[in-house]
């Protein structure tokens, strides 16, 4: 039987070498009025002080490149188009954007800023072969090993093997109702491996027939797509789809918003329900299968960019935390559509880790100001950067994933125990 990959399915992404920008995006490049509203929203700009890292600056530099490449004077004198230096300056700015999408909320002319920034990266990385060096290594790691860390992919379920109560058949199931797609950061980073451990325990306590793909789970493709290498991500997408078909699962659950975003937006998959851990846990609360003991701390919640602005999932985590904490839940300022980025998005941590840390310092500042003792997060990369940022500040505030919170304070009913 031919597999999906052998059948060479239709391309999922346009080839940027033929057409880097869609018609809408060409209009958007023209529509920017340089009002500067996006600068107010841009944490990378606040840190760098360089307009080129903001969408307004990127658009301005790209327009100049259009002009220089198409200049009549240059053509008459048979000069080359825009200089390499001009392209390099543009590239530096484009890859220092965290792709948090916050500027999209502020833009008065409705530019789809995040998609436009990704299209710019597509042009740079794929059409002009201007992929930054560190991203080059990350791409090789994903394509050769199937994960962003270049870690042997057969060790992907090591986090589960660390559990001393791992169900014997969990890693060998051939059929299951629910697939837990863990993602690279949760699988491999020991800084956040408590998250999949906690979410798996939540799933088991809720009585879910769940399976893991272990070494057969490949990177979802997100780091390649946002790095401007969407065409390279296709093989990963088809592989993961084939594996879920083989498993027969009707639901896929995620604790990583970037994986969830990628599946919802780019995976050509019908008849399969996709859920983030915040939504799954909220459903347990709504159905009365999960109740809570009173918490011993004041909680706040940080909206991950890909979950909030990316997929408009704002209410489920708040339903959980209000059910848990009542008045001991405080809203972070700013939050929801205007929530701050953790600094770990858009591959920026790979390209410029110092910028990522400085962007994160703004978030941890807001968290401390909220007065909460625990910041609840719904993203392993947010937790990874935030707990490191809080620790660097010597803060007493703890970061916990929503699955860890559900496990710590949850009382499961309907046959699931609370041990």
């Amino acid at each position, binding site marked *: 039987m031919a597999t999906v990959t052998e059948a060479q399915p239709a391309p999922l992404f346009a080839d940027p070498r033929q057409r880097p920008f869609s018609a809408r995006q060409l209009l958007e490049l023209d529509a920017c009025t340089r009002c500067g509203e996006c600068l107010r929203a841009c944490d990378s700009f606040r840190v760098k002080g360089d307009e080129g890292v903001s969408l307004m600056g990127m658009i301005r530099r790209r327009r100049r490149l259009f002009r220089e490449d198409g200049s009549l004077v240059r053509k008459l004198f048979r000069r080359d188009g825009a200089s390499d230096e001009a392209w390099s300056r543009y590239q530096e700015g484009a890859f220092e954007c965290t792709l948090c999408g916050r500027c999209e909320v502020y833009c008065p002319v409705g530019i789809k800023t995040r998609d436009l920034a990704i299209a710019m990266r597509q042009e740079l990385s794929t059409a002009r072969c201007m992929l930054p060096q560190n991203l080059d290594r990350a791409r090789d790691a994903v394509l050769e090993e199937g994960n962003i*860390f270049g870690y042997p992919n057969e*060790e992907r379920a090591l986090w589960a093997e*660390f559990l001393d109560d791992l169900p014997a058949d969990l890693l060998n199931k051939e059929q299951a109702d629910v697939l837990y797609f863990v993602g690279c950061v949760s699988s*491999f*980073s*020991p800084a956040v*491996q408590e998250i999949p451990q906690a979410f798996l325990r939540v799933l088991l306590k809720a009585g879910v027939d769940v399976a893991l793909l272990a070494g057969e789970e490949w990177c979802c493709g997100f780091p390649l797509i946002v790095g401007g290498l969407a065409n390279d991500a296709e093989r990963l997408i088809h592989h993961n789809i084939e594996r879920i078909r083989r498993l027969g699962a009707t639901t896929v659950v995620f604790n990583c918003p970037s994986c969830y975003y990628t599946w919802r937006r780019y995976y050509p998959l019908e008849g399969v329900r996709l859920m983030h851990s915040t939504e799954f846990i909220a459903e347990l609360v709504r159905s009365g299968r999960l109740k809570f003991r009173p918490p011993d701390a004041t909680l706040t919640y940080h909206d991950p960019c890909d979950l909030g602005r990316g997929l408009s999932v704002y209410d489920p985590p708040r339903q959980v935390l209000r059910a848990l904490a009542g008045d001991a839940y405080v809203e972070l300022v700013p939050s929801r559509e205007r929530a701050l980025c953790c600094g770990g998005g858009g591959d920026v941590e790979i390209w410029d880790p110092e910028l990522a840390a400085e962007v994160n310092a703004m978030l941890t500042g807001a968290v401390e100001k909220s007065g909460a003792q625990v910041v609840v997060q719904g993203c392993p990369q947010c937790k990874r950067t935030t707990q490191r940022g809080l620790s660097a500040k010597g803060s007493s505030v703890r970061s916990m994933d929503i699955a860890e919170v559900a496990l710590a304070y949850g009382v499961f009913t309907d046959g699931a125990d609370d041990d």
Partner: protein
Amino acid sequence: MAQAKEFNLPDDLYYDRKEHIWARLEQDGVRAGVDAFGACAAGTVAYVKLSPVGRHVQKGRAFGSMEAGKYVGPLKAPVSGTIAAVNQEVLGNPGLLNVDHYERGWLVVISPSNLRGDIADLVHGPDVQPWLETDVAEYEQKGMLKKEEERQCT
């Protein structure tokens, strides 16, 4: 004791030449950790996770994972066997891996299942010095190690 630059590697230990994991043969099993050069190249260790006692591990497969300034990756077993002991102190204080490599910074003790066969390809004794010198030079050449004047490794 083998030494290259500031890195000291006791030559009575056995070393995985690629992973820089040391192994000490003891009465109760094989104690394992990260050698001084491996810890320096990885950077400041922030997180360590280890398989629980009783878990079977295979030589060359992960018995734990580590996240440091410049490295996120597996800790690979130098020998096959069963985890007999886990260093709880290093789980609570991963920075020990950077400062006390061969004593308080040990990671696990493995009860080996094929000791003689498994240690055959580990570096030991007089072979440690030339291997260390070559590796340090290679890492420096490839830019995988900070410059000597910028390093703060013990």
